[in-house]
């Protein structure tokens, strides 16, 4: 027990801490500026100087660790004088911009001067002048206002791990800027903006457009972009989101955001938002009333159902929609249409991979807390760059590296490069052999415990020697041995798996190998998730074979139980999964589709094939917020409210259920409400007035979410398995698809880019994100570019069996010469336009790793 006295008040502390923390623990306020609870202490502003008995000099409370018997005074005449002096120093070069500066009203310097500062300054010399920098499209810098607290640099270097900005020069000439001196060209996470105490580094999105005290409404909600599910706070004025900020202390992201979460909200107010229903008349889509549209949809679906049967209709739900939207959607298809043909684009990766891993390890195998990665001593990453797909998860891996943890990768990931991970780079299409080699060697080192018999049976059957690995993959025996040594020594191991692995030939077999490695290393597994509610969509039963809560439709006891609650007779026939739907539409066995919140033409391979299949339907309804490529093909387009305009819940990749809160009032209906209206028109009553009611019903019928309420969620009692019953049985028989593909020399293959600044196509409607990453490019390695005599900015035609794209090129210095990387975020310019696929027989995910392409330069 450490006893200290602060201002004659005795404080007992159980562990050592700084004087500042000790003071704060009992509510004693000491002014600070350079101090920030998330950042390494600096001791530079000197504002927290306090008197400590027996120490001749004043001490900074933020750096001094308490000692037993210490006596501290924080409110003496001398200290008051010191504070006035420090603030005077900070103001001598600080411009009197308050009336003009966007920070006024939430400026820490302003607040401190008001409370502790001198009334008047004595400085009469020339002030430092540095012009405002508007060279960056997203972040505005005003170095005259900078007080050199260096919170931004310490955040960027120490916590974000991007090291994009630094202090240039020294002394009074110091200023902070990115490497280029103008544009930041960084990860645009904006975490520097969060921590700047003054108006020196700010976002351009709301520049000169409001005052902090004019923001009347503030809502704590969940980011709509990826599966991390960061807590964000929307600040709203007059039904316009003015700004999105993080919340310090929030469970998932603790005050950090990425570029999408922070700057990507502008799609909500985009002028391209759909406002009225559209009905195709004489070949073109024309505005119609809600009554017309809903009635037409209900009639058409009923007609198709009578003519061709329930199973001739299919529905696509959405990993961008809320649990309430998705729950009601699958219910609609099952009770009003009478079919199990419901799925989502989670099928393209997440769904199959998760169920594969859960069949081995039990349900909840991937429900691991993201911040736990920072505390792992070893993290292995394969199949995707976590720093771009799930950026906040990527930050935890960087933190792990900073703390001395081992970060290992298969393949190079730009966002982790500077952290010197141990990397293995197998030749194209030889990953399987490499992973088999790792499993073999790791098993030899660690032995088998007998805990998981089916998995161990599979592990025992794998025998690939180090020399086989070297011969096939190019990874040397020495490299392999060193890699396996790290895995052997790991005490707290985490495996992070990205979509590229799942969407590759033999993906399920590779998942088995990764599961084996995780098992042998006694670790846990994380599956990267690109969309905010992939997990939730699956939990809600948006799958052809599962009812909400993962009860199979093929089991009469479940269909009867659910049917009883829903007052309907449910089909026991498992429906079509996503890619089977496309095939069925092509063949004509599927005649109508209802697509909610999804853009399959763009978002799944093979775009041309999906488009053709949809055109073959008798009737297509698309419900969305923008007129997407898919919507343009529809017979009826229904405009929905966006994420910011409705209440609901998302379930993130940790299986944490979180509340989505309505921030903006807009005329229209939520997705679930539109579905309910259509159901009503088809003779099935769905009377809900609020999203909470939908959730309540879902929680009655889903054994996993049983009895979960909004109140529980808001109290933080929202972690898997909630109050429900997880399924723990493990499959005895692990099926895998061992298809393989081999590289043909000289061929060029397609790789899909999952960029940091875009997620799906929604982000392309956010002006700041398109300012950073404006259009699709084909990324080509320097060697290949040279071979083809291409220079930066040339336009090329990229062709595959399935289609062609005309794109600008970008030359990557370190790019590999056997592939061209293209994103899939810009409508009609996506990689999936080129991607034909085979399906992994087990996960049903599309394998798009072997798409052969050709390039030719387009001469002007």
């Amino acid at each position, binding site marked *: 027990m450490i006893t200290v006295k602060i201002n004659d008040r005795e404080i007992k502390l159980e562990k050592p801490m700084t004087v500042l923390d000790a003071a704060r623990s009992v509510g004693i306020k000491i002014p600070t500026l350079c101090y920030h609870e998330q950042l390494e*202490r*600096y*001791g*530079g*502003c*000197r*504002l927290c*100087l306090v008197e400590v008995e027996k120490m001749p*000099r*004043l001490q900074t409370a933020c*750096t001094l*660790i308490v000692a037993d018997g210490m006596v501290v005074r924080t409110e003496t005449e001398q200290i008051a004088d*010191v504070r006035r*002096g*420090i603030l*005077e*120093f*900070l103001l*001598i*070069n600080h411009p009197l911009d308050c009336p003009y500066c966007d920070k006024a009203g939430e400026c820490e310097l302003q607040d401190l001067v008001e409370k502790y500062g001198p009334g008047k300054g*004595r*400085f*009469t*010399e*020339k002030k430092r002048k540095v012009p405002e920098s508007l060279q960056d499209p997203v972040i505005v810098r005003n170095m005259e206002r900078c*007080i*050199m607290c260096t919170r931004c640099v310490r955040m960027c270097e120490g916590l974000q791990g991007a090291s994009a900005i630094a*202090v240039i*020069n*020294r*002394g*009074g*000439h*110091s200023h902070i800027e990115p490497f280029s001196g103008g544009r930041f060209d960084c990860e645009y996470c904006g975490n520097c903006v969060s921590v700047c105490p003054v108006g020196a580094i700010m976002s351009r999105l709301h520049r000169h457009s409001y005052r902090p005290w004019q923001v009347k409404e503030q809502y704590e909600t969940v980011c709509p972009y990826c599966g991390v599910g960061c807590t964000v706070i929307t600040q709203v004025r007059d039904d316009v989101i003015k700004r999105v900020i993080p919340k310090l202390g929030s469970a998932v992201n603790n005050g950090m955001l990425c570029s999408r979460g922070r700057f990507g909200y502008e799609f909500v107010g985009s002028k391209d938002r759909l406002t009225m229903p559209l009905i195709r008349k004489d070949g073109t889509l024309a505005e119609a009333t809600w009554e017309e549209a809903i009635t037409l949809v209900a009639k058409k679906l009923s007609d198709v159902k009578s003519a061709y049967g329930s199973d001739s209709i299919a529905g696509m739900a959405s990993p961008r929609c809320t649990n309430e939207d998705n729950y009601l959607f699958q219910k609609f298809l099952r009770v009003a249409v009478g079919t199990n043909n419901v799925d989502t684009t989670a099928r393209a990766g997440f769904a199959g991979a998760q169920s594969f891993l859960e069949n081995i390890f039990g349900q909840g195998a991937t429900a691991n807390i993201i911040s736990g990665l920072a505390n792992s001593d070893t993290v292995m990453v394969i199949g995707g760059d976590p720093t771009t797909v799930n950026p906040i998860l990527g930050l935890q891996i960087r933190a792990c590296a900073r703390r001395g943890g081992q970060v290992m990768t298969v393949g190079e990931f730009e966002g982790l490069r500077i952290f010197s991970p141990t990397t293995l780079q197998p030749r194209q299409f030889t990953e399987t052999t490499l992973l088999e080699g790792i499993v073999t060697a790791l098993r030899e080192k660690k032995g088998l415990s007998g805990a998981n018999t089916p998995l161990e049976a599979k592990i025992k059957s794998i025998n690939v020697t180090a020399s086989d690995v070297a011969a096939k993959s190019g990874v040397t025996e020495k490299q392999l041995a060193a890699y396996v040594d790290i895995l052997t020594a790991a005490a707290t191991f985490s495996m992070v798996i990205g979509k590229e692995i799942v969407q590759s030939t033999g993906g399920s077999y590779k998942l088995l190998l990764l599961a084996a490695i995780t098992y042998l290393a006694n670790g846990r597994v994380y599956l990267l998730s690109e969309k905010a509610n992939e997990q939730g969509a699956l939990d809600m039963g948006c799958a052809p074979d599962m009812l909400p809560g993962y009860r199979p439709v093929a089991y009469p006891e479940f269909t009867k139980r659910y049917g009883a609650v829903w007052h309907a007779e449910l089909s026991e026939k498992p429906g079509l999964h996503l890619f089977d739907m496309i095939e069925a539409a092509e063949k004509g066995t599927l005649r109508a589709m209802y697509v909610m919140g999804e853009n399959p033409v763009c978002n799944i391979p093979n775009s041309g094939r999906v488009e053709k299949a949809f055109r073959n339907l008798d009737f297509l309804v698309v419900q969305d917020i923008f007129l997407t490529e898919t919507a343009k093909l529809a017979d009826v387009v229904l405009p929905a409210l966006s994420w910011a305009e409705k209440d609901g819940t998302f379930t993130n990749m940790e299986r944490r259920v979180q509340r989505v809160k309505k921030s903006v009032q807009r005329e229209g209906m939520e997705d679930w409400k539109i579905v309910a209206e259509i159901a009503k028109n088809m003779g099935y009553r769905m009377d809900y007035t609020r999203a909470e009611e939908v959730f309540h019903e879902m929680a009655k019928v889903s054994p996993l979410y049983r009895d979960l309420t909004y109140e529980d969620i808001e109290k933080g009692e929202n972690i898997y398995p909630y109050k429900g019953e997880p399924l723990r049985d493990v499959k005895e028989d692990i099926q895998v698809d061992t298809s393989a593909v081999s590289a043909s020399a000289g061929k060029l293959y397609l790789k899909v880019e999952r960029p940091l600044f875009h997620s799906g196509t929604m982000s392309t409607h956010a002006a700041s994100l398109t300012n950073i990453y404006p259009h699709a490019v084909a990324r080509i390695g320097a060697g290949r570019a040279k071979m083809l005599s291409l220079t930066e900015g040339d336009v090329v035609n990229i062709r595959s069996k399935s289609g062609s794209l005309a794109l600008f090129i970008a030359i990557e210095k370190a790019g590999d010469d056997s592939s061209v990387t293209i994103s899939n975020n810009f409508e009609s310019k996506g990689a999936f336009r080129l991607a034909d696929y085979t399906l992994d027989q087990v996960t049903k995910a599309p394998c798009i790793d072997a798409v052969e392409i050709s390039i030719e330069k387009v001469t002007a």
Partner: protein
Amino acid sequence: METILLKNIQNPNSADITEYKKAGGYASIRKALGMEPQQVIDEVKKAGLRGRGGAGFPVAMKWTFASADPKFPKYLLCNADEGEPGTFKDRPILEKNPHLLIEGMVISGHALKAEYGYIYLRGEYPAAKHILNAAIKQAYDNNLLGENILGKGITFHLSVHQGAGAYICGEETALIESLEGDKGQPRIKPPFPVNVGVFSKPTVVNNVETLSNLPYIIAVGGEAYAKIGTPDCPGPKIFCVSGHVEKPGVYELPMGTRLKDIIYTHCGGIKGGKKLKAVIPGGISTPVLPPDKIDCAMDFVNMPKNGSMLGSGAVIVMDESVCLVKVCHRALKFFEHESCGKCSPCREGTGWLRAILGRIENGEGMEGDIDTMLAVSANMLGKTFCPLGDGAASVVQNFIKHFRPEFEEHIRAKKCVVNG
């Protein structure tokens, strides 16, 4: 007193190992490596050696802390960043007696059980870099550095790390930061370098001159060493004198030699027989003294009693022709240039003081300027992250304390009252 630190430097080949050995060098190393590390520390304690960089910290005490720390490897860093204006005492050792330093470092490394040493050499000494590198190579070739030195099983690796023009890197934690490849900004203490220093390992930082005393201490023993100088501050001291004296230069004299004697006896008095106006006794950061305060022993105990400090022992002598406003202004230009920028009082205060002094020197001084400077410097003194800010503040405070009328005159007359 025999010449110890600057022994043999008149020899044009004094930097060569053969010459050094001929003059008796590298005998102590053999003796020291035959002693236990603690025995070496004990001799240093008996010798009463205090750091010669300016702070005067007892060397044996610093070494004991580092030695007691359980972490390995340990590091010995030689602070050759001699940057205090007026100071040029280490340069003769570096350029003309490098083996003395090397020998001193091996002995000190042994005492500390340090395996690695770096000489942090200021970038402004390119000649010293070449000379040191050559001397180090000679030492390696002669089994005096590297593995199993002289067959005694002791390992000590030494190399030169060049700074790049930052006075602040003379501060030990800033030096460590710079060695690690970062800006030279001082670190929060505690932890102290003796526990968590360079590369997070126990580190001792000692000045060139300090380390150069080791061979002699080992040769004659601590007790005999302590007979030189004064009981509180034993040993020889290299004083470097510049400015308006007949014979500026380096003078190796016992610690405690009186400042008056240094100026008038050893340096031949004021140049051209002019009158003494002011003396800075230990480098620009030490308080300036008026002529009636120079009859004082130059050591770590007496100078503070006299209102100043020994500092680096760099004596700057100013005669009646000097405009002290100009000197004060130039000093603050120096501090402003060298401020690392980490803490607000120094970063902003040095520029403010320099600006006021500039105006005064230019004839644009205003009433109230002196009081403003006193207030600003008082707001810096004791509030900054490291002593650089204290140095800047104390320059202003002491110049005004002793020479206020000249400042007031300069302001009133709107021009220099000494030189017109």
